[in-house]
């Protein structure tokens, strides 16, 4: 929040709800944050906490029954993405904002050559001939470190390795030199040795192109490695936000604390952060009060009564935890209320 220039993206009170037969799933429920130009921001949290939906909301890629609720605002380059026309939002996608998915395997269309798929971005957004777009695609593939890009471009996704495919996706994302790249768990599906390479590549390319990156991950290692500011999400909300050093040094929210404790050494992949007992509650049924209460070792009656606001707990450091007003309680943890079994599977 120290940015002096106006932020590139400014999200205010973003609520993305899914209106299903089983009720309204409030996957993202009042999220606000900014991303500055050239900045790398991380969002961290467990599966189902709303990070991916937040990312998709920025691109308005939410499919029915999901919906960005009225009143939400996503300002980007001075326009509100939420209210843009279909044509305008399409003009932004892949052009000003692009995204890298976590499954390079399935994110590429199996029946087209990778070159075609990368070139398609240019064909949509730039007034380019087939040939020009192709050349550009090959150039871009080469830039992402794919050896013999010309040949590779003519191959189909199934002929490439996982790391190679992720590079293809990166090439696709950076094709139009977008202002913002959203990377949704870009390395999760990859081999440990490849993970580091891809992250390096991302950082390097960001420097070269000057784009902002929103890095979404459950892996605090990745956050530490790449980002300057971190947003911690839980149960559809931002629960803590701080510069990366501040956060690692002084995590405030018990959830962040939990994440830290479960953090593996960098390079050690772990499917799930399972050190925090229990799981994220169902999005159709967020608990009243603090949503982390049932898993929290410090919770007390206030947590049940009152939904915590974001407390300012440091310089550019906010946290959605009542501990901000009764910090001494941190010294008296108790066993969490829930046991694993009590949570019904969705």
């Amino acid at each position, binding site marked *: 929040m120290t940015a002096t220039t106006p932020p590139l993206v400014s999200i205010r009170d973003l609520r993305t709800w899914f209106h299903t037969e089983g009720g309204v799933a409030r996957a993202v429920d009042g999220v606000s944050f900014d991303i500055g130009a050239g900045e790398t921001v991380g969002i961290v949290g467990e599966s189902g906490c709303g990070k991916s939906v937040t990312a998709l909301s920025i*691109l308005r*890629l939410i499919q029915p029954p999901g919906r960005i609720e009225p009143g939400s605002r996503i300002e980007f380059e001075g326009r509100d993405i939420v209210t843009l026309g*279909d044509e305008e939002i*399409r*003009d*932004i*996608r*892949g*052009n000003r904002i*692009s*995204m890298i*998915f976590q*499954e390079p395997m*399935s*994110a*590429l*269309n*199996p*029946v*087209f050559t990778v070159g075609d*798929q990368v070139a*398609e*971005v240019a064909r*949509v*957004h730039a007034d380019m001939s087939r040939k020009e777009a192709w050349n550009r695609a090959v150039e871009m593939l080469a830039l992402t470190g794919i050896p013999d890009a010309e040949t590779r471009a003519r191959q*189909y996704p*199934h*002929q490439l390795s996982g790391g190679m495919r992720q590079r293809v*996706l990166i090439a*696709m994302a950076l094709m139009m030199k977008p202002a913002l790249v959203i990377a949704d768990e870009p390395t999760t599906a990859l081999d440990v040795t490849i993970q580091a390479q891809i992250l390096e590549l991302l950082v390097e390319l960001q420097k070269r192109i000057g784009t902002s990156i929103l890095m979404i991950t459950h892996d605090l290692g990745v956050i530490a490695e790449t980002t300057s500011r971190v947003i911690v999400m839980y149960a559809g909300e931002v629960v803590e936000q701080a510069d990366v050093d501040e956060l690692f040094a002084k995590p405030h929210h018990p959830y962040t604390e939990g994440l830290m404790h479960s953090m593996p050494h960098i390079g050690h992949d772990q499917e799930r952060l399972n050190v925090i007992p229990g799981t994220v509650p169902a999005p159709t049924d967020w608990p009243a009060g603090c949503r982390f209460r049932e898993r929290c070792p410090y919770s007390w009656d206030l947590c049940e009564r009152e939904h915590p606001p974001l407390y300012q707990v440091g310089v550019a450091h906010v946290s959605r935890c009542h501990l901000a007003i009764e910090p001494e309680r941190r010294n008296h943890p108790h066993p969490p209320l829930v046991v694993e079994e009590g949570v019904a599977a969705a």
Partner: protein
Amino acid sequence: MLRYLARRLGQAAVIVAIVATITFALIHLAPGDPFSAVMDNPNVSERVRATLRAQYGLDRPLPEQFVRYVNQLAHGEMGWSFSHDRPVQAVLATALPNTLLLMAIALVGSFGLGILIALIQVARRGSTTDHTLSAISLFFFSMPDFWLAILALLAFTYWVPLFPVGGAVDPVMHEYMGLGARIVDRLWHLALPALTLTVLAAPTVARFQRAALLDVLPADYIRTARLKGLTEREILRRHALRNALLPIISLVGLSFPALLTGAFFIEKIFAWPGMGLAVVNAIGTRDYPLVVGGVILGSIMVTLGSILADLLYVWADPRLRAN
């Protein structure tokens, strides 16, 4: 690839051999001799009787008859059609191109139409248009072939006489027409039967294609396409359709029996001179060799059809093409 083809053709040969065995069993298990009507008929010439005897070895022991029968079949000989007074294979060879023409047009037409309907439905999934088209598809899907053909005949040759009542060409004037007029004459006669068969086959395709598209839509690469800024229509047409066409190709093979069956009724009702008409007429004349020939040829067509579909599948799917 070639090895695969060879293996499939080998399987096909086994299948046809089994079909031949089944038909042979049918003939010989039947009460009374299906050939007695021919053998005792004074209107049947001695030549035909000799041919039949040779073909089926009617006075020989059963195993010998069987070997003989299979051997003849292997050489493409299917016996003598006494109602046509020609070899069965000659009758079927004359009729087959007409049936294939009808089936080919209906195949292309029904897949085109079915895919189009599915695209419209999926583009507006959940809308009234989608539901209405689904209901219409199901309605036509549930129709007996012959009934739709009767209705089509009734509607377009009696009530609104747009098309001729039957046949492949104007039987009287075709001979005296110029090339252009002949082509027009052919198309005019072809239109209604082909259209009917198309309409009969399209619902299956539409229903299948709709399901296939809906299966594909949640795929990650569709989201990738959206992310690129493509319009929904482009996504559907380019990315979803290409992938959803793969399962549809296997439907090509599966739809052969239905198309063939449909062609039988349609040829009968529109007097289209194909193998269906030949076989259906042979029912009445108890021209058993022709009926059996039709059954065997039909099975060969179905088998080849499924091989064709497999090859098409391999060709269309880059993942398989490489191997």
